[in-house]
């Protein structure tokens, strides 16, 4: 018998690095927690489109998505 709990995973690109995550789909909010970025001020682009912060709970990430996560750093 095949177990009812099938382990699935997805591969996404975060800031140019390949990341393997559990599951087939995850919200941006959940991804932020997974990446240990909770509470950080950041802006996120998914596949070249900005995801407004107000939509972090709704917008999901799937296999093959490319994410850019940026913040403010010192510069002139």
């Amino acid at each position: 018998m095949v177990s009812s709990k099938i382990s699935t995973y997805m591969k996404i690109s975060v800031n140019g690095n390949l990341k393997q995550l559990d599951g087939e789909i995850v919200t941006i909010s959940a991804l932020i927690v997974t990446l240990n970025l909770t509470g950080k001020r950041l802006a996120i682009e998914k596949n070249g489109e900005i995801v407004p912060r107000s939509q972090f709970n709704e917008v999901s990430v799937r296999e093959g998505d490319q994410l850019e996560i940026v913040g403010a750093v010192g510069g002139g």
Partner: protein
Amino acid sequence: MIIDKMNKQLTIAGKSYHSRLLVGTGKYKDFTETRAAIDASGAQIVTVAIRRTNIGQTAGEPSLLEYLPPEEFTYLPNTAGCYSADDAVRTLRLARELLDGHKLVKLEVLGDPKTLYPNVIETISAAKILVKDGFDVMVYTSDDPIIAKQLEDIGCCAVMPLASLIGSGMGILNPWNLQIIIENAKIPVLVDAGVGCAGDAAIAMELGCDGVLMNTAIAAARDPVMMAGAMKKAIEAGRESYLAGRMPKKLYSASPSSPTTGLIT
């Protein structure tokens, strides 16, 4: 324009600032030094860069924003490191999202990694897109008066010609071009890049610049905090010297400062 130049405050995109010194936040030893130097400079507008967040960094690691709260300073996100209009526009759209719809930005599009000389063609095309998109664009450019005027005509809120190349500390290499740019401009003109010491900053202000933006001149000084204070005074002294109006230059005057009568004989 003359009345505007006499104003004590610098007005950019409808907001007034008492400080005419704008500073970068890069190249400091740590955030404590960054904050101390910026406090000493009296700057109200600080530039920041937009970069990929480190993934997997420790959760408690401090960020620049904690040391320079956006409620206390006006952030000026830049496009440093961008070599195309597309990259610059993309960066500033992310910055706007990052800073809750903040519209004031510094556009710079570079043309050459060796010299960091600006690419004015790409700068102009990025400026057009950003202005149309509702940004208040302070634009870094060469000291070409025609380009400066075109950037103003596009709708930029301030034009920022270089004094010399970024990080060079070579000072003001072409005061004549800067004077033409200042004379033609109806928007604030700020020298951005190339200032090396307080004297350079004072000269920029004496030329009639509305302000100066600098980073390396402070951060790379032996004592950055002391240099930040020196820059603050230089900007103020240069501004007052400009407003006071210098005496005319003459090869000689035959007019000594002490009385020519009453000499003991």
